[in-house]
Structures are given as C-alpha cells and as structure tokens.
C-alpha cells in the first residue's frame, strides 16, 4: 500500500484546505505518507504531487532536502544519537560507540531483524540534558551506556509501545479546525482591503 488509504486521503484534503496554496501542504503530506508506510514511497510522492499540483519530481526535490524523510524502509525504531558540541562534551562519542557495539551495526545501519536503525543526529535541542538521544523522536536525557542497554532491551521486548509509536508517526495529535469556527485560508491577492479589525478602529492608520 503506497497510495493514501481513504481515511488518510480525507486527512490529506483537510490539511491542504488550510493553506492558501496547496503546495504548502507538501511536507505535512510527506509526513502522512511516512506515517502510513514507514517511509516515503514513489507512489506516495506521485499522489502528493497530484494533490498539491506539483510534479512527482518536484515533490521528490522537496522531500530529499529534509532529513526526516526516508526513501527506503528503516528499522521500526530509529535511534538518533546527538553528536553536536554540548552532547559531545558530555560523552556522546562513547555513547555512539557503545550503541554500535550493542546493536552490532555501524552508524546508518539497520539491524537484520528490522527493529533498529542507528543514526548520528545533529543538535536535538536538549543541550543541558546531554548526552541525549531520540527514539522515533521521543527523548531520552543524560543517557549512559547502561541506560542505552536498558532502552534497547525494553524496545525489543515491546515494553515501550505505548510511549513510542512506530517509525513514521511523529505527533499523535492532529490539529482539527472545526468548520463553524475556522476562518479559512486567506489567499494571497493584491488586495488593498485591510482586515476588518484594522478598518474598524477609530483612526485607521495602519
């Protein structure tokens, strides 16, 4: 299954409708495709192109710029170990080395059972809690080699499925704009009409 399921297609259309131009939905729709399939397939990019009015090559062009999008299957759990300065100062190098040993794969590799992919990440924004890592974008702070061992064992044993969704799902909450409350997308047009709250002020000077 690589094209959107019916329910995801409905979500995709809802997302597109929020933007003044459909193409703005490209990245959110790529995330939706990755959430559905675990990675971004060619068929998905073709369909996203149809939905947002771009060629599949243009969608590919956008998608390949961003590190979170994967174009072939990765492990169920993507482990990103940060290696930028704050984490490096606090032992990220040793942690990465330990992870490679524990998982038996080099950085960038995936375990044979398809459970884990190990990546080196750049600053993940948890610098005072160094060294940090993310598993499918869920944080672990001040990680020691022992903690990493425990984490990998727990993930293998399925103990963290409630907290950590499979690779592809980032946020589990979607924005929903109720039809009766939403203003709707404001299209870019050369209008000279100022918004009503500016127009209605005593001396419209803005």
């Amino acid at each position: 299954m690589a094209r959107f399921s019916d329910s995801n297609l409905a979500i995709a259309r809802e997302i597109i409708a929020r933007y003044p131009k459909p193409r703005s939905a490209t990245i959110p729709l790529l995330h939706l495709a990755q959430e559905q399939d675990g990675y971004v397939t060619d068929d998905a990019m073709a369909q996203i192109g149809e939905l947002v009015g771009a060629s599949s090559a243009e969608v590919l062009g956008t998608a390949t710029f961003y590190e979170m999008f994967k174009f072939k299957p990765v492990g169920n759990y993507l482990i990103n170990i940060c290696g930028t300065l704050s984490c490096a100062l606090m032992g990220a190098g040793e942690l990465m080395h330990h992870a490679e040993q524990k998982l038996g794969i080099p950085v960038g590799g995936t375990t044979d059972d398809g459970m884990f992919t190990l990546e080196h990440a750049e600053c993940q924004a948890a610098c005072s809690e160094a060294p940090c890592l993310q598993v499918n974008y869920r944080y672990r702070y001040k990680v020691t080699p022992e903690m990493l061992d425990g984490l990998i064992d727990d993930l293998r044993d399925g103990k963290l499925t409630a907290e950590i969704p499979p690779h592809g799902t980032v946020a589990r909450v979607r924005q929903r704009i109720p039809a009766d409350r939403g203003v709707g997308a404001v299209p870019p047009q050369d209008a000279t009409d100022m918004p009503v709250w500016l127009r209605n002020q005593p001396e419209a000077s803005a």
Partner: protein
Amino acid sequence: MSELRGDTYPHAPGFVAGDRPQIVTSRFRYEDSHTLQRYLDTGGYQGLRAALAKTPTEVHDDVKRATVLGRGGAGFPAGVKWGLTPQGKFPRYLVVNGDESEPGTYKDRLLMERDPHQLIEGCLIACYAAGLSQCFLYIRGEMALAQERVATALNDAYAAGYVGKNILGSDLSVDIVLHWGAGAYVVGEETALIESLEGNRGMPRLKPPFFPAAIGLYGMPTIVNNVETLANLPWLATNGVDAYLAIGTPTSPGTRMVCVSGHVRRPGVYEMINGTTTFRDLIYGDEFCGGIRDGRELKAFVPGGGSAPWFTPEQLDIPFEGKLAGAAGSMLGSGAVMVMDETTDIPAAALTLTNFYAHESCGKCTPCREGGTWLQRLLTRVVNGQGTQADLDQIFEVGTSICPGDFPHASSEKLGLEAVPFPYKMTTICFVGPSAYAPLNSALVLFPEEFQARLKKRISIPVTGVNG
C-alpha cells in the same frame, strides 16, 4: 562548594526556576501547565482581552515602546519589524518560527511543550496589532511532544472561542495553522522558513528584495517572529509597558531565556533578567549553574549558540547585552551558552560544530557549500594528527572566502590580541556560511598552541654521503 539555589521540576527536565521575575516561564512549575484549564486559572488570555480593548495601533505602539527584542538570534525589535510592512498591501501573514535548531538552544521547545497557550495568545496579539490575516506556526519536525502539545492547545482554543472567527466576540478573525518541518537547520532562517512553508526545499532567498515584511509568504507581506518573542506579548499586554521596562535595561528590557550546557555543575534553561546578568553570574552564580563541574577551571565558552565566536574567562564580566557582546567580538544569538572546562580538546570541540555546519549547508551559496566541507576535511585532518601548517593556513584562506576581512573574535590579554567586533562581512546569503567558520576561527585564534601541538611532525630522512 556552595549550595545551588532554585527549583527544578521533574515534569520539565532542564528548567530551573529562581528568585527572579518570570515573564514567559511563570507556569512551568505546574505539571499541567500546557492545559487550557491551567492557563485560564493563571491569567491566561487576559492579555488578549486587554489588547482587544485597545485599538490595534495602540497595541502596536505598546510593543514598540516596550522594545521587545526578537529572541531568535538577530535581536531585532519586534514592534519595528511589524511596522516594516508596506502600507495598503494585504493580506499580511504571520509565520511563527519554532524551527529551533541552533546548537545549544532549546528554550522554544520548552515554551511550546510547557505553555502552548501562551504562544497562541501571543500570536493573536501580534495578528491583531499588525493586521495579520492568517498565522502559520512552524514547529521543528523532530519535536514530537511540542507538536502534540500545540495541536492539542489549538484544538482546545478553537473549541473555546479563542482562535478562529470573531475571537471573544470581537472583529478579530484569525486561523492559526500548525505546520511542521522535517529536519533542516537552515529552515530557521526566516526566508528559508518561508520557502519550506511554500512546499519547497528550504533554501534562503536573497535579501534584498525578499525582506519578508515586504515580499514574504506567497509574495505577500509577512512577519516572521520567534516563539519566545511572541510568548512575551501576553504578559506585556496584561501588565503594561512600564512593568516590562522596569525589568532589564533600556536597550534590552524584560527577561531572556538562556540555555547553559556543557561542563557546568547544573546545566539548564534559565529565565534571567535581560541586559544586566553577566556571563560570570550565569556560569558561577549559585542560582544559575553554580560553577564548573568537579571544581575545574573554565577554558572557553560559546556565548550565543553554535554560530557565535567563543569567549574565554577574560570575557566573563560582559553582561548579556547585544551591543556589548558584539563589541567584544561575539553575539548573543539564540541565548545558548556552551561551557568547556580545562579538560576540553579544543580542536575536537571545534570539529563537532564544523561538522554540524558542513552537514547543514543547504548548498545554495558556493562559499558555504564548498567552504563548509572544505573546513571539515582540513580540520578533521588536523584533529587526527595528520595536518600540517599548510592546512592551518588553508583554513584561514577558506574562512576569508566566506567572510572577507577580519573575522570577529574576542580579545586576549594573554596572547596580546585586540577584539574584532561584530558583525562580519559575508559572501553568502544567510548566516550558515559564516557560522561554519566562527567556532573554528575562535578556536584557532584563541588557542593556537593546541592546533600547533596536533600538527604532523616533520620526518627528516637522513641522507648520508657514501663517504660520510
């Protein structure tokens, strides 16, 4: 060793409260600070009500008078930025920059995770004052929890009538659309953010002519504001300009969130008084980091995120104030201090940042695309003990191609160096190129002996004459 002061909370790892004014972190102490109920119970959406009771022009004037400085990195006053939109051209958009990825920084993530309604309220006040018709809240792709918290907060705020049509029964009607990225540092640059929001590769646009306030999202006037900047507005609207100006200094009023990481006793995120707190207070103060870990000596520190030139203990008494830090040869950037103690391998530390910028160059400008990876290769060679003096010379030459002229650096009494003040000249569109060079230049200028010691020893092959 003296005792550390200040409260920490298990639900907000990294944040340290203290006996200081709290403008943007006042709710962090509550575990449920992200909920609408807690927000309303603690004065939430009162700032919006106060703003709606005034005219948009009055609210805009308040923000101008309060000199709310941008907290993203450049420190440009928000009220002035709002005023740069061309007259009579509508619609105008608001784009919230929550693509926080500067090495060492994570204040915006905490603000989004811990107090999303405060950000939403700030967005609405900005839209009201500057006449912005739709808001796009761009959150970094990797911040799953922040995305969930903001999505939940938006859903609740819509249901309760705080966002959308005729907010609180007023004329103000604005949608806030949650948008999220997918991993690219350069997208934190405002024009790259706009490109990304239009569904493209996140490459910066040339300024001029693409100043977002004039030609931004879809070619329309667009205000791009940082999360922390907007999070200041509810407090300002509720408590008034004078209360805001009473904190900090006239050029840097209010508070500022700063993230201190590295070799300190208590790394963390602190909300501190703007303009007066010095780096010494921050690194050694008991209410902040409490000194260097294990009683060691400070060697160097990064004062304003990975892109900033480094300071040494000689600059400890400089206050957290943009102009003073600039005159001393660096910048405050995104409010991230990274501390290195005496055990730090300076060339290797510089390499982690050079790797970062080489990796994150978008590839649009040649000096950054080629120069970044060139610096990375040269420095890697030096760190591995395979470098020569020619490599060090080459590093300076590549750096000069990215930033012609003297590159800013701190003074050093020990080395007899005068400070070269900010800013630098640059041959690239955005700051990623110069940022790739900044840490390396600082390391080389301030710690030359560490690089010299790493150079490959010249091997002399004895050539002996047949008769000798």
